[in-house]
């Protein structure tokens, strides 16, 4: 009896799906249709019957917290994962089951990954045609490649010499080049995975311009982002997924920020973080005339107990270099560092650790994580002594401490023995913060602490930072996100081209003031200026 009802329901659901399929196949409005797409990993259901339709030529924002399943969804589209049986995907009205990225590209779907990794030793044009070089007989036709690359770049308004080696190209430009490459594949749909993560404000606006230009060519774009501002600025439609489930799609003009946030987190939340005031104590750290030739020059500031001290500036202004020097990772050549009024010497990170300075670095993969080691091992590394009994590390003790940190910071991981590479970005970041909290630091340096982290986790990290300030710790934050600095910092030091432009109080700090100070030293290089004016005159002609 039971099995009969089951089979009837099954038949019925199959039938409705068939109807849906037929209607969709005739729906020529959409470039991409995903119906009931699921993906199960051992023990985890990463995607649960997701439906997504992308209109031709539209910019479609895809939002969701870290671990919501955005990346999995995109990897399915790009042929990197095979979805579970039962779902269907149509591209331009035809069934679409890519087995590898090359299938996706040939069908007309290209991807601009979050972290692009061009071949640094090759030129812009060589990177552009990597793997599909234009040939004349058995030899490469270098001039044809240069010419065609130049054409596309000009068309999209990206001024740049195509013979520049990739290693001399900024992150922002490389990002734009990746988009141009996708366009050159004759893609009908381009997926952009958080393209602004590594960009500063002014670079972001350049990116917007390019994205709009791409859209004008009739190409649809799936724009994955954490940033609400971007979504409202750019997109026509926005879809939200949460915990692997499809929540809904809305026209961007029909939805408010609050509604969108509610869709994402499933709970109400203030957009801008409102911090509480903390009593600020005596001066803890004083930096005098710190210099490292070629990187930064004559930096002076002090940080007091309980104070949150922000460092602002464009990418390349020397912000990270200053904190790296402070921590002894890449020490300064001259200048003094005073702690508790006494001069201290910091030549190596272990000197800084001895003085209870913690440092969450900017690049998780490069200088933060030990990817193939466990959460526990990643947490306890800076100081193993507290876990030792008779010179041997007590696994039990380490695990207990790691577990308590896991609960305290609400780190989502099956166990603390899990290899950290399997965690989502936000949770990896929490582990790295936990690492330095275990040191019980007096000073905590955070370089881009919420880079690539979802709104929910961000707010948690902000709360944590204020809580640490309340406990009398001095906090130094380097960030490219203006709102983050403005809402958290008591004072903000602005840097430009390795120099300290000034320090602004919380009461006087506005987005405009800081941007103006940061842009003070921002002059494009001679070559770029010439190219830019050349393009403009050509455009007029």
């Amino acid at each position, binding site marked *: 009896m039971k099995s009969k009802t089951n089979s009837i329901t099954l038949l019925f659901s199959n039938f409705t799906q068939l109807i849906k399929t037929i209607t969709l196949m005739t729906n020529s409005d959409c470039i991409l249709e995903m119906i009931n797409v699921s993906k199960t990993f*051992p*023990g985890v259901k990463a995607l649960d019957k997701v439906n997504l339709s992308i209109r031709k030529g539209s910019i479609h924002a895809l939002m969701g917290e870290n671990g919501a399943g955005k990346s999995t969804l995109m990897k399915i589209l790009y042929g990197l994962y095979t979805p579970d049986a039962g779902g269907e995907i149509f591209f331009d009205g035809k069934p679409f089951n890519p087995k590898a990225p090359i299938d996706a590209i040939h069908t007309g779907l290209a991807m601009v990954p979050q972290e692009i990794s061009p071949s640094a030793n090759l030129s812009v044009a060589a990177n552009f045609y990597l793997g599909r070089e234009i040939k004349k007989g058995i030899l490469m036709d270098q001039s044809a490649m240069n010419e065609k690359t130049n054409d596309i770049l000009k068309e999209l308004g990206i001024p740049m010499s195509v013979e520049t080696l990739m290693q001399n190209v900024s992150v922002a430009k490389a990002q734009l080049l990746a988009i141009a490459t996708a366009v050159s594949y004759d893609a009908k749909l381009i997926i952009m995975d958080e393209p602004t993560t590594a960009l500063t404000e002014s670079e972001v606006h350049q990116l917007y311009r390019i994205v709009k230009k791409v859209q004008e060519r009739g190409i649809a774009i799936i724009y994955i982002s954490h940033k609400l501002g971007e979504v409202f600025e750019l997109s026509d439609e926005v879809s939200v997924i949460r915990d692997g489930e499809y929540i809904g799609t809305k026209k961007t003009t029909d939805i408010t920020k609050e509604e969108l946030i509610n869709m994402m987190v499933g709970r109400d939340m203030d957009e801008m973080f409102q911090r509480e005031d903390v009593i600020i104590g005596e001066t803890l750290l004083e930096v005098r005339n710190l210099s490292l030739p070629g990187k930064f020059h004559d930096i002076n500031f002090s940080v007091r107990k309980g104070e949150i001290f922000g460092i602002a500036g464009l990418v390349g202004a020397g912000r990270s270099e200053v904190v790296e020097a402070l921590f002894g990772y890449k020490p300064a050549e001259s200048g003094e560092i005073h702690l508790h009024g006494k001069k201290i010497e910091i030549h190596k990170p*272990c000197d*800084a650790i001895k003085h209870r300075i913690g440092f969450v670095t900017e690049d998780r993969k490069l200088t*933060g994580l*030990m990817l*193939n080691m466990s959460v526990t091992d990643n947490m306890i590394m800076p100081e193993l002594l507290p876990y030792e009994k008779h010179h041997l590390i007590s696994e039990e003790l380490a695990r207990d401490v790691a577990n308590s940190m896991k609960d305290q910071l609400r780190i989502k991981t099956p166990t603390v023995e899990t290899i950290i590479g399997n965690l989502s970005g936000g949770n990896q970041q929490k582990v790295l913060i936990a690492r330095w909290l275990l040191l019980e630091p007096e000073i905590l340096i955070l370089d881009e602490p919420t880079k690539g982290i979802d709104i929910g986790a961000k707010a948690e990290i902000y709360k944590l930072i204020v809580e640490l300030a309340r406990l009398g710790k001095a906090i130094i934050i380097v960030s490219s996100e203006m709102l983050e600095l403005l809402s958290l910092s008591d004072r903000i030091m602005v840097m430009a081209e390795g120099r300290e432009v000034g320090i602004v109080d919380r009461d006087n700090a506005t987005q405009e003031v800081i941007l103006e100070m940061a842009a003070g030293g921002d002059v494009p290089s001679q070559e770029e200026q010439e190219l830019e004016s050349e393009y403009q005159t050509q455009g007029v002609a």
Partner: protein
Amino acid sequence: MIKEASANARKTHYTEILNKYGMLLILILLFSALSLKIDGFASFRNIFSILEQVSMFGIIAIGVTFAIVTGGIDLSSGAVVALASVVGASIVTGTEGYGMTIFAFGAAMFVGSICGLINGSITAYGRIPPFIATLGMMTMARGVAQLVSNGRPIDASSDAFTSIGDGSIFGVPGLVVIYVLVAITCHIMMSRMSFGRHVFAIGGNVNTAKICGVNVEITLLKVYILAGALAGLAGAMLTSRAYAGNPTFGNMWELDAIAAAVIGGTSLAGGVGSVPMCIVGALIIGVMNKGLNMLGVDPYWQQIIKGMIIIGAVLLDAQKRKKA
């Protein structure tokens, strides 16, 4: 749904176990198969004979495992065996008593440590890739061994000295006892001491290790000194068993040692490895060598089979990584 999830969880559990103990399983299967095929393969006598052979390159393999876990390599260990062997033999030749024996073992390990110190310094402070540094040492140590011995074997027939290689404690050969002691000590160092944790950290991400205050240079120095000292110890053991020091000893042992580490799942990319699994790797090679010999397989074919097993182990490791 719940059933499905738990089935999946069980499946992951099985794969995890298989990943962790797969090589142990292969060792057991290999041993069982050979025991069925060959009379007396599973006898104590034969097992101890295998263990004795394994003990020497197995000790080297432990040192090499440390180097590989940091993301490095040690190619000099075979040559260090030769150098330690002629040094040990020169000291002990024509002497009596355990005093000189201990001195000879100590000297062999000291010579090995010096080679390791040079390897480590060049790697850590000269920032030369360990592959090149230890390749140079491999040639040099062999040359010094030839020089010291004038290219001839040196007699080491001191009763006390040779009793280490010949003798046994409660029926367990002396060399095997040394192997077990070294293995236990190194296992504790690697898995439970901060030194071992730093070794993993360097292999996992050297930048992070630096940020976390690990003294990368000193740690690397210690690793190569340890690897050198263990190769020196293996040299002394071989000399005591062969009653002579010989500048041709230990030829290609470094490759057996690396093979043992890799078969045991040590990742050449660094950050992954363990002493117990390194022992399993060494035992697989030992059991296979002995088995193929007893089966009368052509030695040329033996080489071919060994090579295939090494490549197979690395392929398996790569597969594992892809899944994770």
